[in-house]
């Protein structure tokens, strides 16, 4: 078992037994559910909107080569720079070098999961650059030196009391109130200093619009616009899969993203950025860079079966509905992307041997697939990941032997029947001796949390053979 798997098992066991954690997450997600359901009613035909979004993303991903080049051409024509990063290291090196060459000492960031994925902040901090997360949730988890708990709401696991305590410790020991408005004011004052000191702003992108050559960013706090317009340099760090063909596609993607993410009709700020400040413009950065990160995505593109995983618009809806996420929480996954999309994606991005366990950590209930706004067949991709894991030899050999034995029995009805009878008989003996749950009980993992399964003396097939043909049922 990989170390990531061992850690996941331990953390998931602790968190899923933590009822206070469950109540907090349930409370937060229940209010999300209500907003999401209400939000959906604003869209005349939700299913048609999902279908449209799926088609747009499918077209974009199937013609990624063409649309990315179109995007690049437009950005470069306006004086922007586009850097193609094959992996995390290339992306980080580009941004680090840029910061060093331009004498950048302070960076402000708006929320971006891709920068988490490539570990950009620690890379910049190593060169002595001060990096500020300016999304309130990200700011909070940065102060706690934690990873985001959720791809959309990074500090969802904390209540206001914990946040007040954190701010007292790290920002201002005189804070007394734990009122959200007061706490926000503290963060705002602190972050204003950073916005005006920063020479570089880093953002992600929700969409890259090919025909407009523009980066589309959806935010709610206004920090995104400050990051992208106040500092001298703006760097967009994003995945190549964020491309969409046309500006008009945003007419459906923006409201669907907002509805799926937070239940809003549209996010408070919806921004399109096409390049650096031009002559005669009052604000905007002098330099504009877009770092297009591959980092395993083109490998996924080559996989016809799972290519659609690249359609993901990172709305977080699959996390919110996932019963496993709701019980183990975001940190147990130990990955940048949590929940169903993370469990599908991470083995592709970070290695199947190390992360195949996440594909198994699902009951395959399919709730994720039912809410995905771009209709990614998430739980079936988990099944394919499992198949890929066994084919890659990433699972236990004892398990393979067990399933080979099982197959033999299932191909031979008499052996199956005899096997079933023997197991029931043996278990009855074990339980009869009061050894349920002991080391001698092959069902002890089951029995740790459950009372033993019933062990009837006769199987259905035996009952049928005896008199089922005639006597079962009404006389």
């Amino acid at each position: 078992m990989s170390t990531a798997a061992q850690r996941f098992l331990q953390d998931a066991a602790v968190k899923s037994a933590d009822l206070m954690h469950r109540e907090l997450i349930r409370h937060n997600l229940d209010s999300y559910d209500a907003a999401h359901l209400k939000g959906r009613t604003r869209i005349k035909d939700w299913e048609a909107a999902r279908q449209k979004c799926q088609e747009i993303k499918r077209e974009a991903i199937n013609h990624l080569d063409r649309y990315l080049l179109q995007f690049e051409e437009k950005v470069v024509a306006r004086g922007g720079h586009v850097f193609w990063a094959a992996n995390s290291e290339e992306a980080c090196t580009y941004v680090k070098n840029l910061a060093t060459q331009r004498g950048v000492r302070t960076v402000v960031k708006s929320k971006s999961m891709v920068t988490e994925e490539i570990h950009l902040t620690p890379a910049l901090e190593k060169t002595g650059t001060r990096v500020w997360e300016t999304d309130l949730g990200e700011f909070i988890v940065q102060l706690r030196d934690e990873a985001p708990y959720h791809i959309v709401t990074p500090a969802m696991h904390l209540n206001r009391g914990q946040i007040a305590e954190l701010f007292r410790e790290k920002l201002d020991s005189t804070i007394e109130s734990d009122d959200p408005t007061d706490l926000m004011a503290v963060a705002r004052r602190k972050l204003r200093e950073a916005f005006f000191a920063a020479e570089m702003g880093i953002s992600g992108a929700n969409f890259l619009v090919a025909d407009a050559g523009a980066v589309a960013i959806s935010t709610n706090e206004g920090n995104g616009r400050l990051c992208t317009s106040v500092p001298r340099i703006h760097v967009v760090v994003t995945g190549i899969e964020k491309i969409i063909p046309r500006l008009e596609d945003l007419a459906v993607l923006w409201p669907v993203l907002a509805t799926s993410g937070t239940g809003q009709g549209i996010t408070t700020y919806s921004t399109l950025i096409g390049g650096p400040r031009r002559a005669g413009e009052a604000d905007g950065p002098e330099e504009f860079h877009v770092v297009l990160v591959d980092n395993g995505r083109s490998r996924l593109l080559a996989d016809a079966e799972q290519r659609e995983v690249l359609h993901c618009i990172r709305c977080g809806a699959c996390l919110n509905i996932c019963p496993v996420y709701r019980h183990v929480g975001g940190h147990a996954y130990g990955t940048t992307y949590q929940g169903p999309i993370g469990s599908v994606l991470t083995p592709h991005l970070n290695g199947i041997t190390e992360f195949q366990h996440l594909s198994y950590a699902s009951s395959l209930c399919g709730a994720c697939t039912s809410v995905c706004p771009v209709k990614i067949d998430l739980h079936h991709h988990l099944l394919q990941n499992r198949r890929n894991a066994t084919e890659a030899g990433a699972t236990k050999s004892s398990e393979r032997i067990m399933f080979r034995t099982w197959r033999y029995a299932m191909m031979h009805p008499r052996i199956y029947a005899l096997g079933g009878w023997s197991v029931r008989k043996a278990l009855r003996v074990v339980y009869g001796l009061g050894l349920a749950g002991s080391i001698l009980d092959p069902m002890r993992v089951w029995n740790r949390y459950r009372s033993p399964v019933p062990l009837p003396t006769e199987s259905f097939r035996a009952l049928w053979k005896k008199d089922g043909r005639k006597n079962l049922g009404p006389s």
Partner: protein
Amino acid sequence: MSKPRTVSLFIPCFVDQLLPQVAVDTVKVLRRVGYGVDYPEDQTCCGQPAFNTGYWDEARPCAEHFVRVFKHADAVVCPSGSCATMIRTFYTDLLVQSSLRQDAIALAGRTFELSEFLVKVAGITQVGATFPHSVTYHAACHGLRELHIHDEPLQLLREVDGLTLIEMVRSEECCGFGGTFAIKFSDISAALGNSKAESVAATGAEFVTATDPSCLLHLEGILGKRRASTRTIYLGSILAQDGLAQKSSAQEKS
């Protein structure tokens, strides 16, 4: 398809071995509403345990065996939404290169979970059952999201004489069974099961029912461990109660 007169029973392996009463009750209900019932004795398992664990090469021959056993059936009825899903949804993926693929696709079109067979194919919601108890309904995942069974079980339950239906919160949230998931991630599975048990308990109902005895097997274990007063009972077992024998057929312990 034209209405079949005889149906072939597909009894999942765990029902055969651990919950034979579920199968007996399924036979009773089908016969009571006028169907002939056939049980092909060479059937074993649909292959889902191996398939879901990623062992598709091991699952495939079982699936082929299943198709061979059932391919001449007019209609296949299964007392489990999950196992019916295996035939309906997954065989086409699993048998994509098999010589039996066309047979599998045709068979998928003739395979039904019990409640959807009764309501959608047979057109029956009143099966003449009596069950004077309070019952809450758990919407089992595979039936709900793979087979799109929403209202059929509730239509059947509403027609049962004496039955009081109590809605539970989060009725569509997974109970946490998930096949080998329940063993591989026992802690998480049990946490989900306990959440479901709390939703069940909050209804105060005497019984919790579902279209899937696999969910109920897990839930019965969880409820048993919690010493909860609510018991599980398979949907078909409620429908089989004819009012003559009022002994409860809640999943029997031996």
